């Protein structure tokens, strides 16, 4: 890795460790908006890796962020095309996910006995009732192709653009609760499951942790991840429907297990907190300094700083300003963030930039230039 790469990596790492840096690093949280900022339509770019690569590279060449949460590899849409069915609706307006249910609550116990076989023989069968071996062959080839694309574009960003990735693709931890929330039971049912099927849900969560999450995490922690900003990554999304008591009983224990393993291995984690995490902030109090970056979305980041002064925070730049404000308003707010959040801050958009009107190019250019040149 080149000099610039290592400088950027060190800048991020110093902020993760809560050290003072004169310049604040800018981590781009742009996802599908990168395509809206290009010459391509979203439906065509997600299916054509050459076009996606052009969109993503063009984005970097326009803005030159220090690092990226996504470099166009997030949605392996062609895998689902090969299988003939998807919950994703991708149009010129954006990407929407249809809430779906693939299992009944009475099946939690069966799931816990063998998650892999349950997923294959029940969930896949239900979602793709007409799929045969030949479709699986085609879909697996697309999955491999997508992994190759991910590796190839990752290599370009490291070698040509000297941009570190936030984390390695194999180092993503999915909290077990999220698996049921996003994949098998859906938002609509998790409220019921947290009350009516609490014990069975916890049993399935623990099985998912032991059989899928921890083996993957232990492997990831044993590998060299020194080229990434953080060693691992986790997104917490569905926790926001739980009361504090439910969060403590159902969600947090598995997250704590993961964080304890991380601490033991002396590794770091980037945690994206969708929605509002402030009501659960007490749970994050005991995380050792330098272990975690908390990227907050809808919370007032200044309030989060007061509650969690010892943790590196990321996010803060309001997407509603980037989409609706003037360049000067955006720059003024960016300055406020950098001046007031102190040490241990990674500048980024609070929400993922996903839809066309989420951002105006002139605003993003102005903010990017300001953050690059401003010194504390």
């Amino acid at each position, binding site marked *: 890795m080149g000099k610039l790469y290592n400088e950027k990596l060190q800048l991020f790492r110093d902020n993760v460790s809560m050290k003072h840096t004169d310049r604040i690093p800018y981590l781009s949280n742009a996802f599908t908006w990168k395509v809206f900022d290009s010459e391509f339509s979203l439906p065509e770019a997600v299916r054509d890796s050459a076009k996606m690569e052009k969109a993503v590279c063009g984005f970097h060449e326009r803005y030159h962020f220090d690092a990226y949460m996504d470099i166009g590899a997030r949605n392996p849409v062609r895998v689902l095309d090969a299988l003939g069915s998807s919950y994703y*609706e991708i*149009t010129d*307006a*954006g990407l*929407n*996910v*249809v*809430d779906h249910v693939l299992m009944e609550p009475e099946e939690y116990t069966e799931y816990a006995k063998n998650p892999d076989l349950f997923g294959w023989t029940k969930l896949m069968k239900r979602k793709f009732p007409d799929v045969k071996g030949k479709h699986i062959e085609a879909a697996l080839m697309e999955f491999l192709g997508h992994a190759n694309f991910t590796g190839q574009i990752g290599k370009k960003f490291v070698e040509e653009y000297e941009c570190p990735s936030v984390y390695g693709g194999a180092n993503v931890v999915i909290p077990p609760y999220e698996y049921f929330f996003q994949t098998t039971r859906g*938002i*609509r049912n*998790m*409220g*019921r499951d*947290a*009350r*009516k099927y609490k014990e069975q849900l916890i049993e399935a969560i623990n099985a998912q942790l032991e059989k899928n999450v921890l083996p993957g995490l232990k492997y990831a922690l044993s590998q060299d991840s020194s080229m990434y900003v953080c060693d691992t990554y986790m997104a917490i999304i569905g926790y*926001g*429907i*739980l*009361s*504090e008591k*439910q969060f403590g009983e159902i969600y947090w224990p598995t997250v704590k297990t993961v964080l304890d393993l991380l601490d033991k291995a002396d590794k770091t984690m980037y945690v994206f907190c969708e*929605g509002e995490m402030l009501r659960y902030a007490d749970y994050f109090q005991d995380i050792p300094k330098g272990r975690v970056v908390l990227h907050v979305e*809808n919370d007032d980041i200044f309030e989060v700083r007061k509650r969690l002064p010892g943790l590196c925070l990321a996010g803060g730049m309001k*997407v*509603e300003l980037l*989409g*609706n404000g003037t360049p000067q308003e955006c720059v003024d707010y960016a300055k406020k963030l950098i001046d007031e959040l102190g040490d241990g801050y990674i500048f980024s958009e609070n*929400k993922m930039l*996903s*839809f*066309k*009107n*989420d951002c105006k190019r002139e605003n993003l250019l102005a903010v990017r230039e300001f953050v690059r040149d401003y010194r504390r």
Partner: protein
Amino acid sequence: MVDLTRLMDAVGELEEDEAREILRQVMEEGGAQANEAMEACQKGMDIVGERFESGEYFVGDLIYAGEIMQESVEILKDAIVSGEGGAKGRVLICTVKDDLHDIGKNIVKAILEASGFDVVDLGIDTPPEKIVETVQKEQLKIVLLSGVLTLAVDSMKAVVDQLREAGLDDVKVLIGGAPVNEDACRRTGADAWARNPQDTVRFCQAWV
């Protein structure tokens, strides 16, 4: 005859199976208690609302309560008789164009119905033209717009603009959902915004 206090408590405690059992008994007995049973469910939803405000229940519980309420209406609907009092008021609710999320909308709808409102639900991904057309046809005076995605605010503005262009200045518009705040309310030109279902009910009660 069923125990209506037990029914109210079952809904308030989110005891879905017990509530269902009692409601089925109402219908098995010919439905004579249907209206009173509906009222008991509504009182149960009031308990849910109080517990939400106190922090004991949270969003997941509101979603669950909404599902229980929907099922209750479904079980009782053939036996419910609209009395002379009728509905407190009629409101239109929908998720705006390009947004597919409906859980928040459904929670608000359940609580409004529990509070005695007649709710015209246009579903998800609702174009502004359809909202305006329905408001004109049904002579509705309150429009509730829901959305979760950042683009929902633009869609909400389009609705307000089209309502005003159609001369429907006396129609009250309230917006709600994750991207909604004071600034969004100002930008869209809506009359109010709500952070939770209880606020929505309070606005609707004030506007009828």
